[in-house]
């Protein structure tokens, strides 16, 4: 079952501006290509998920990061993308 966020130390806080790394060699593969190298804002902290049906072991803490469609794909859209990313993929801006 899932652990609670309270017992997990996050490197980031809600409101932090972050950039997604282009690569994270040892990082988990679940980072969509379209956000690599893009900037966003942390909107939620999910803690460390123990999810044995899905994966062995424990991944680094997970954050929701909000991107604007305009920053990611160009154009003039004001719409947004919320992507859940593990912290080893993020650097603070």
């Amino acid at each position: 079952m899932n652990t609670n966020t309270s017992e997990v130390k996050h490197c980031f806080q809600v409101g932090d501006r972050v950039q997604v790394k282009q690569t994270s060699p040892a990082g988990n593969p679940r980072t969509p290509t379209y956000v690599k190298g893009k900037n966003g804002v942390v909107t939620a902290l999910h803690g460390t998920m123990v999810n044995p049906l899905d994966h062995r072991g424990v991944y680094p803490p997970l954050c929701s990061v909000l991107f604007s469609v305009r920053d990611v794909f160009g154009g003039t859209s004001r719409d947004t993308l919320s992507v859940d990313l593990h912290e080893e993929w993020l650097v603070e801006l």
Partner: protein
Amino acid sequence: MADNPGHSHMQDFEGHVHAVEADLEYWRTKRLEPRIFQLHRRGVLTLYDLLHAAADHPAAPAAPHDAEQDIEIRIRALEDGLDEYTRGINLISIDEADNPMVIEDTRKERGDYDDFFRIAKPPHGGRLGDRIARLETDLREYKRLLEVVTHALLDKGVITAEQMERQCAFLEGRGAWNGARIVARAWVDPVFKQNLIARGREAVRELNIPPGRLGKLGVAENTAAIHNVVVCTLCSCYPHDLLGDPPWWYRDDSYKECIVRDPRGTLADRFGLRLPDDVEVRVYDSTSDVRWMVLPDRPSGTEGWSEEQLAQLVTIDSLVGTAPALSPASGQNDC
């Protein structure tokens, strides 16, 4: 693209056939065949076990397809066949306690992270009649392979008939109806709603709904300022253990690509959902660790309705965010 289940006449044969083509190949290339490779690689069930099972359990003679038959009847038969195929795959997707195959392994083996590993899909296209005939042949062969794999798993004792019965009961217990009950309760009970948004799966216990175990449940609440929509661009993560299967196009690559690049345009063009300019569209890209659902707005004109009545207005599309909940005038949801 919005598909109206039930017993009305089909309007769009091409659309129905495309849906069967896309979903059938999803289930074959992402759910059944990677699992066969996985079992073979680990020596749990080898290709030779399949040969033996095929010899021991010969195929029933195929009923000839009647090409003169009404096209709508043939498409309905394909849709029913696809349902049987997906149910059969779900029935044998059981992990042994001492030999767990975590979902993440499956994603690697089926090429979710690397196109190199993807299983090729046959080209589709051509005249409608040819596409239907081809699907009839493909479906018969795909179901035969599933039948052989099922026999082989049982013959070799990899899974037991009791496990399959338990799996069957589990599959029957889940479904979009749970999602409808959760949404209806959230509409009438603000405390439940806060609890649901904050604690996810734990909150549904009070409805006597089993909370499931696939990661955390994320709940994206629609508001006057934000309309939410859910996708999983890397695979097709969804809280299906709680809500049942998402709509078929949720697994379709073209939905995944379009909805992140142009959320507003995709909702308008594909789903006929036109949102005011001052409403932000927010797309949640699900992962396996947080599986998102949308909490749609309560339709106006439903003051004083019971939870049971309100639940009738919640569709599987509204849980993904490609449609609002039904309005009282549009009639009741029959699925």
